[in-house]
């Protein structure tokens, strides 16, 4: 088991390296750098000005060197610019250049500087992630129990009317992406056109003070899309378990139906949905980006959109490190959890 986890972690690290390099490559393509230079400096810079702007700030070094700097395995650049000012990657505004460290990258705990927010990437990522964490928590708290209940109710009597209607409901939810359900929910529950106005159409206030009124719609919007898929998996798994021999035996023994479902079937039926729930995290990330944009909730997904829209290289890299990490860790947990839940499967 330990060996399995170690191997998986090694693969994870390699994957993260590859992925961050891809992000690095794409964000460092010249047209992207040019756009960034123009947003940073001014929009009327000519080609030469752009070139010297980029050169002075170390953007025109060879790609592997820049990537090494970001990782912290290559010394940060120190460039005497064409305007006479000496700039260095590791220079801090209140430090004397000679005292600044030689290496500054992810390995040293320095995630870089966000050109969009004019502050430290690590700080932005942690605050934004915290806000998204609250959102995710409520999404999970709403989505997982309701999906499991729907799946179990539908799967315990396959083909019944409950099953038909709940299955149709789950198909409808899987067909409703966040930007559709969000729009419909806002229009119905928060617009003056329908006159209900039960909830708020924006979640900006929820960043300080999340309550039912301003946080319900974003949470429901994300939960709906993920719910159907988990419910369908639970239903399939439940339906399969209910045809097993030991369930028949239990019925013949005279165990009551609720007892069969809760005590005999449930545990075995929840193995498959567990994996699905874990693998749902990467999808939730997509949902988070859409919902945070739609409801103007300034969390992690919002930061991603801002970083990508402004070619904020180091923030974008920070965001991708975190999201890739989330994806890979949930995959690992789902694999390990699967083995623990299902004694019939062994790692070897």
């Amino acid at each position, binding site marked *: 088991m330990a060996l399995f986890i170690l191997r998986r972690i090694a693969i994870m690290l390699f994957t993260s390296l590859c992925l961050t390099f891809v992000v690095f490559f794409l964000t460092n393509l010249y047209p992207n750098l040019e756009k960034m230079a123009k947003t940073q400096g001014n929009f009327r810079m000519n080609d030469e000005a752009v070139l010297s702007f980029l050169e002075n700030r170390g953007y025109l070094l060879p790609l592997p060197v820049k990537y090494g700097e970001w990782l912290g395995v290559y010394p940060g650049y120190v460039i005497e610019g064409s305007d006479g000012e000496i700039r260095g990657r590791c220079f801090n505004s209140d430090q004397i250049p000679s005292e600044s460290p030689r290496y500054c990258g992810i390995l040293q705990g320095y995630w870089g500087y966000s050109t969009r927010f004019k502050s430290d990437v690590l700080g932005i990522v942690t605050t934004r992630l915290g806000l998204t964490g609250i959102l995710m928590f409520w999404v999970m708290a709403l989505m997982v129990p309701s999906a499991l209940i729907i799946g179990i109710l539908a799967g315990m009597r396959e083909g019944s009317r409950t099953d038909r209607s709940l299955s149709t409901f789950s198909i409808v939810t899987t067909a409703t992406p966040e930007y559709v359900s969000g729009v419909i929910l806002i229009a119905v529950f928060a617009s003056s*056109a329908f006159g209900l106005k039960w909830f708020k159409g924006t979640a900006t206030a929820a960043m300080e003070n999340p309550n039912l009124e301003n946080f319900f719609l974003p949470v429901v919007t994300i939960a709906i899309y993920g719910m159907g898929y988990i419910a369908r998996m639970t239903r399939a798994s439940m339906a399969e378990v209910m045809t097993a021999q030991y369930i028949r035996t239990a019925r013949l023994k005279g165990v009551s139906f609720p007892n069969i479902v809760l005590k005999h079937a449930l545990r075995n039926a929840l193995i498959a949905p567990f994996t699905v729930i874990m693998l749902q995290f990467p999808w939730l990330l997509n949902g988070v*980006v859409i919902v945070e*944009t*739609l409801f103007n909730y300034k969390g992690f*997904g919002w930061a991603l*959109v801002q970083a990508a829209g402004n070619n904020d290289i180091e923030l*974008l890299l920070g965001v991708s490190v975190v*999201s*890739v990490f989330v*994806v890979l860790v949930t995959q690992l947990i789902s694999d390990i959890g699967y083995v623990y839940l299902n004694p019939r499967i062994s790692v070897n």
Partner: protein
Amino acid sequence: MDLLTWSDIIIQIVLRLGPVWVALVILFLVSFRFKRSLGLYGKLFDSTIGMIGFAIVMFWVFAGFFAGTLDWIITHDPLAQFSGMKNKVPGTPLRGAEDGDYSHFLFGGDHLARDVFSRMIAGSTIVIIIAPMATLFAFMVGITLGVPAGYYGGRLDTTISFIANLILAFPVILLFYLLVTPEIRLTGLPQYMAIFLFLFPLIFYTVLVNSRFHIVPTKRNALLGIGLGVLGILYISLINEAGSKISFLSSIDLFDVDAGLLTVFVSVVFVNAPTVFRIVRGLTMDIKTRDYVAAAHTRGEGAWYIMLWEILPNARGPLIVDFCLRIGYTTILLGTLGFFGLGLAPEDPNWGATINDGRKLLSIYPHPALVPSIALLSLVLGLNLLADGLREESLKD
């Protein structure tokens, strides 16, 4: 001219969609008549869910087709702005309508005073072309790589699987933001990706024909010559664009695809292909242990013949079901791209972009965003129901 009531609006829209209803009725009558001789497609008409799904999907296909080719159904130019129609509620009469103009905005006007109904119908034309095409290309890539990976296993499998997992570990939206920007288009990267991805149908076709007919060289040469000729010209026309990084052989460059559209297309294929690869690989690993594969081995058939003519046809059931689901998913992805304003031109009537435009005034004028939302929802729902019906029917035998 008065404001139409909701019942009037519904009647007007049903009338306006007349050709679609006629086409649907004809399609269903013909399919019902011959359903016993139509294989899996015919069996679809035994399942209520499947029929409902198919009807919804075909509704949009016909609507998009009639609007795109014959200019029917659409009441006003989807890009034109009409003075005085800004944010008007559904059923508002067109101000200053002349003879020949349609008299009302059936679903109202949007924030730029364009007709919401016409934009919704025009949006369906784009979706019903791009979504199935992109899914088809993703399947070509996934099958061409997945079948050998599952069949041979070993290092080939490890390498391709690693790359597939790499792409899958990317959050889709981040990938879109990195690939679908005007700046990336300047570097020609989407076109290089197009060169690579669009090559797969050619490879697939060549291997498919060659593995079967290499014993009859004349027939093979004829099939390969004609097929590759047609595919090759389409390929060159697709990847070439005058004035961009890749423009060669402009004499046989038949058509230019809009650069934004090509980028969107390529990235959607790129995102979908790894999942298809994983499904095909899994199916191949399962099927290659069957007896008929062993029998083909014993007959001395080549590896590619076994892969493409023994294994692949037997994997078709799950693949067809996944194809339907994946068109739905691609529709969602296209909507996502539009929602973030990536790819297509801003005034383009695709559903995602229309939702994004409409959401800014959502709490006051919900209709410009609601209409495309419900359109997109219904199409994806139709595809999911269709897939469900197909799955049920294909499991029966």
